[in-house]
């Protein structure tokens, strides 16, 4: 399979996944996803996984057998189509895309079939399926492996769209996605797979699950709200640390769910801080930040003390050359500068470099 071979050549760029054995109850995102899949497959014999390129499904084939963990021909429209058909008729498939870029070859099944069938059939055909895999920019993999599809899928009624950041998110949201009766697009990040996060005993419990549609306030603050999802949550937290030293208290919201979007948490935060910076790696036009901005203008316009700042990927297909690639995705410094502008207006409004 071309997909797997190609994956092997890419994997070294992110493979620092040895953290899982460290003593202080740490867990990598990869292990969080793997354990969530394992537990849900064990709890429900109808759950099955198709494909598998990034070792997220490691060990599951041996444990559950080839009938439930399928390696399939490399045809996105094929394995997505059989997944949707299996979901139509009683199974709960988890379909893995090697990257969400390749979900474009199967998008008709995701949008026209999975997202719309429950509505078009007036509830006669429910589609309990999860489409998961790495989304957005990785490192050094160019335009066709780096696209963020959060706003694409996020714009489509009938779908739920989740984007985990930490191991807690990955476990709780994946379990929620598998248990959910609706089709869920689950956007992971390749560069986070090997990262370790502290996890509580509660998170490790097999009953742990997170609600879909609820954002998490990762860090409380009072001067400016920063919204982010996936890898950008980590960047926003780093920016908040830097801002703290300069006397700016930033509140960082980890969206967790792109659709439904937790408008109430975002608006409550903005009403408190009176300033908003949105961060995403995807393209700016019609992006997640644009939607958040609209929500805040509609519901909390009178509370804003400064124009909303929107940090997004550059409006270009991702270049491969590392120096240009760095310029095309948001950096911690970009967030810091935007937050300062929102708070003091001391940094000029020129486009962030």
């Amino acid at each position, binding site marked *: 399979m071309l997909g797997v071979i190609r994956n092997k050549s890419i994997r070294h760029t992110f493979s620092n996944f040895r953290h899982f054995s460290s003593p202080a109850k740490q867990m990598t995102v990869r292990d969080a996803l793997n354990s969530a899949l394992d537990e849900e497959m064990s709890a429900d014999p109808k759950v099955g996984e198709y494909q598998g390129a990034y070792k997220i499904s490691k060990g599951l084939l041996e444990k559950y057998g080839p009938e439930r963990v399928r390696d399939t021909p490399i*045809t996105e429209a094929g394995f997505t189509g059989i997944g949707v*058909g299996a979901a139509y*008729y009683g199974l709960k498939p988890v379909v893995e895309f090697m990257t969400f870029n390749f979900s474009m070859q199967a998008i008709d*099944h995701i949008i026209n079939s999975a997202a719309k069938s*429950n509505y078009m*059939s007036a509830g006669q*055909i429910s589609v309990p399926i999860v489409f998961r895999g790495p989304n957005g920019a990785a490192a050094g993999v160019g335009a066709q492996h780096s696209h963020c599809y959060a706003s694409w899928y996020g714009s489509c009624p009938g779908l739920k769209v989740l984007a985990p950041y930490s191991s807690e998110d990955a476990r709780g949201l994946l379990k929620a996605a598998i248990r959910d009766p609706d089709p869920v697009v689950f956007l992971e990040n390749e560069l986070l797979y090997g990262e370790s996060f502290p996890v509580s005993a509660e998170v490790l419990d097999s009953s742990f699950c997170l609600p879909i549609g609820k954002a998490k306030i990762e860090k409380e603050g009072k001067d400016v709200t920063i919204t982010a999802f996936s890898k950008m949550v980590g960047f926003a937290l780093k920016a908040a640390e830097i801002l703290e030293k300069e006397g700016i208290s930033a509140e960082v919201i980890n969206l967790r769910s792109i659709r439904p979007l937790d408008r109430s948490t975002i608006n409550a935060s903005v009403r408190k801080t009176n300033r908003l910076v949105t961060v995403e790696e995807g393209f700016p036009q019609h992006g997640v930040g644009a939607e958040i901005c609209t929500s805040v203008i509609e519901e909390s316009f009178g509370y804003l003390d400064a124009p909303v700042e929107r940090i997004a990927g550059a409006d270009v297909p991702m270049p491969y050359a590392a120096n240009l690639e760095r310029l095309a995705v948001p950096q911690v410094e970009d967030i810091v500068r935007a937050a300062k502008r929102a708070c003091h207006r001391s940094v000029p409004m020129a486009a962030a470099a």
Partner: protein
Amino acid sequence: MRFISDISHKRVPCYRVLDDDGELMTHTNHVQVSKEMAVRMYSEMVTLQTMDNIFYEVQRQGRISFYLTSMGEEAINIASAAALSSDDIILPQYREPGVLLWRGFTLQQFAHQCFGNTNDFGKGRQMPIHYGSNKHNYFTVSSPIATQLPQAVGAAYSLKMDGKSACAVTFCGDGATSEGDFHAGMNFAAVMEAPVIFIIRNNGWAISTPVEDQFRSDGIVVKGQAYGIWSIRVDGNDALAVYSAVHTAREIAIKEQRPVLIEALSYRVGHHSTSDDSTKYRPIDEIEYWKMERSPVNRFKRWVERNGWWSEKDELELRSSVRKQLMHAIQVAEKAQKPPLEDLFTDVYDQLSSNLEEQERLLRKDIEKHPKDYPSDVPL
């Protein structure tokens, strides 16, 4: 060194049971059909034909927005349905309403769907002819071409996992075989050893594209072998041949847990849909020839009559009764209440999401405030 040529010198033969006059052909095996079954098959073929004629006229009168007939393909519709069990799940394209008719979807239900009223199983969400009924194991018609093929493989895989004695059956036309999903579906079915039957209606025309411009192979039947799938070419206008082929395909699919492909040769006598005028791209003589000389309904009728199972009196009674039922069904469907406002929002998700609840609340408030700005035919 020897290349395999693009086409073999002998075309794949077409399995037939009845000749053009409805006489049993000699030297041909077929699955026996009882008098009761034969009469029912013929009656349903006539019902389908009549329904198509009347709904087509109703569309022409502007009472429904769209319609699409199955004229000329009545045998594929009804004989395949007759050969299957009601446990078998159907993932149709859109020219197979006869399968649903066979399974007991009433003329009234067809009418409700075409008029998109509140009694429609689909709550008026889909354009006419996009029927669907869980009760009848018939998945809601999906417009994009050929997506139902890999989906049928997934549904068949679900049946396989459950060890059920049933198969998935999916339909498409000759045009659909050019879609990527056709090839994905075939390959996955073979690799996953899925109990699925692909019934391909090769009716000569994909809207205005003739088969000569669709592919250069010996039709569709040869594509099955390339994917490692048992395949047969059958005369789609021969109800007994279709019945026998589907009956046998079902046994193979279930007992041997493997896919089967059936290429049913036919002709699309009607326009593609009411959005099409096929006389612009094909001769009227050709249409008339297939409509009269090669009609699958007439051919089957001759066989049933020859057996002494059907009389001219039966014919008159049936046609008049179906016509009356349809006229009544249309009147009822036309007068029935349209879907209420709440159905705009339900079923997007399993549970109404909070933003949809809010949208509904705001919409109701606005209608209350500005009733003149909103249509009056939406029950609140």
